[in-house]
């Protein structure tokens, strides 16, 4: 592609009309809760903008974040985001490997010094010098430090890069830390989620390209457009919460009627993400709509918060008193289960004996 070709030129060459671009920005403006007129402004600005150079580094991760973007059910997002950006390095997606791949990364950094956006998925191992995760003989820590110093901004994609994620979970054997613990001299945007929603990744990059600035961020450096509301506040089951109607088990009458899952451990009230509005699988559903409570995967330490099925009103700390109470409760449940099982066994034996008696001549 010619160096100074605009995104509008690229799209026109591919036969993508401005109406199609407007449809795309209309979706983006909708999911980013921008002012209604923003979709037209975004379409105009995107058409005039140049493609943004992006270098994507993967550290201690599962590739779920890349999968979320590239396997998006939204072809518009998948296709158009790659028209909007110039993805100059991505280990999973690029054809090059070995020395050629590393040379490509160094060339991309040199060609776009101070202008490229660095995207990182995965946490950074720091224990024992970060030796637990290396690429081409360099630790993730080294790669991050030497690449971030020339970046315009850093986007930490996924909960691992944003908050440490699963590698950071107790006992954190690799000394995993989030990107923001390492990069201190430039903006780090967090797009957490396990994985994050494709539209949140694409929308944030598109926003930077469109408006030439970082989006408005919350106290955890997450774009407010996607993480400004608690899932609970946008949940279609919220009216049931307000009416005090809760499912008490996954197969009771309340569950069948679609009542609020708060008592089943839903973390929606303390989780900030766009699952309830953008949804997953092409807008089909999200965990709560599918009958399971929110795990809170876009919040720090969600794995270590004491249990996915404990209501938020339960103290989920790890102090001895709570653990003791949990053990006592577990023992009580165990005793009850044993009694029920014994009762059922006795009932079955009685029925079997009765059937045997009836079957005798």
């Amino acid at each position, binding site marked *: 592609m010619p160096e100074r070709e605009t995104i509008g030129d690229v799209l026109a060459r591919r036969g993508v009309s*401005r*109406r199609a671009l407007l*449809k795309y920005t209309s*979706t983006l403006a909708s999911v980013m809760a921008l002012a*209604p007129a923003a979709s037209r402004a975004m379409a105009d600005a995107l058409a005039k903008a140049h493609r943004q150079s992006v270098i994507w580094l993967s550290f201690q991760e599962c590739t779920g974040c890349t999968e979320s973007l590239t396997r998006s059910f939204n*072809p518009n997002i998948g296709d158009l985001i790659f028209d909007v950006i110039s993805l100059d390095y991505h280990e999973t997606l690029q054809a090059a490997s070995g020395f050629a791949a590393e040379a490509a990364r160094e060339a991309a950094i040199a060609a776009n010094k101070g202008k490229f956006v660095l995207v990182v998925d995965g946490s950074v191992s720091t224990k024992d010098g970060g030796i637990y995760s290396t690429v081409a003989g360099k630790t993730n820590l080294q790669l991050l430090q030497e690449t971030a110093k020339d970046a315009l901004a850093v986007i930490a994609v996924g909960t691992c890069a944003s908050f440490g994620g699963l590698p950071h979970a107790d006992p954190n054997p690799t000394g995993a830390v989030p990107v923001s613990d390492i990069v201190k001299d430039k903006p780090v945007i967090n797009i957490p989620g396990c994985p994050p929603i494709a539209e949140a990744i694409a929308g944030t990059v598109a926003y930077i390209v469109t408006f030439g600035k970082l989006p408005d961020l919350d106290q955890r450096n997450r774009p407010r457009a996607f993480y400004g509301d608690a899932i609970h506040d*946008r949940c*279609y089951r919220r009216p049931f919460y307000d009416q005090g109607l809760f499912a008490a088990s996954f197969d009771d009458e309340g569950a069948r009627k679609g009542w609020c899952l708060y008592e089943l451990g839903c973390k929606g009230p303390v989780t900030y993400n766009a699952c309830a509005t953008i949804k997953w699988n*092409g807008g089909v559903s999200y965990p709560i709509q599918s009958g399971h409570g929110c795990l809170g995967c876009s919040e720090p330490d969600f794995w270590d918060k004491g249990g996915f099925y404990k209501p938020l009103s339960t103290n989920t700390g790890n102090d001895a008193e709570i653990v003791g109470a949990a053990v006592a409760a577990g023992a009580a449940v165990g005793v009850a289960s044993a009694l029920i099982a014994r009762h059922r066994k006795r009932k079955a034996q009685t029925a079997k004996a009765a059937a045997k008696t009836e079957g005798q001549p």
Partner: protein
Amino acid sequence: MNAEPTDGGFRNGPLTGPLTGLAEAVFGEIAARLQALADSGEESVIDLRSLPLTPGDRRELEERLGHGEVCAGLDVGGLSEVWECGYAGVWWVRHLGEDGMPRSEHIEIAAVPAILVTHAGDIASAAARLQRDAARPAKEDTRHA
């Protein structure tokens, strides 16, 4: 294309369901915004996907707004459905992706929804293409056949 309101894949489950009163609130907001359009020409958009409407609420809103004189279908990066509601100047716009899955859905209060207006850039590009095509003979001239 089916111009009747459908669930468009935005909902899972029955179209009926509990009413929360949100449809009534949105209906009132549309009324205020349509008045603003009538008074000052101010256009506006209400994003339906960002609202926690239950299936029942959505059905209620669709029924209250009704259908007007115009409906249009677009095939651009997937299908889109646009219809004027029973109140002139109120448009229901639903965009689907190329996979037929929903992308966005909003109520647009305007004389013409933005997606229906042809962009000046596309007109210029089409004019140039038409000039080129007009200057070339048709592949097969059958006028005297």
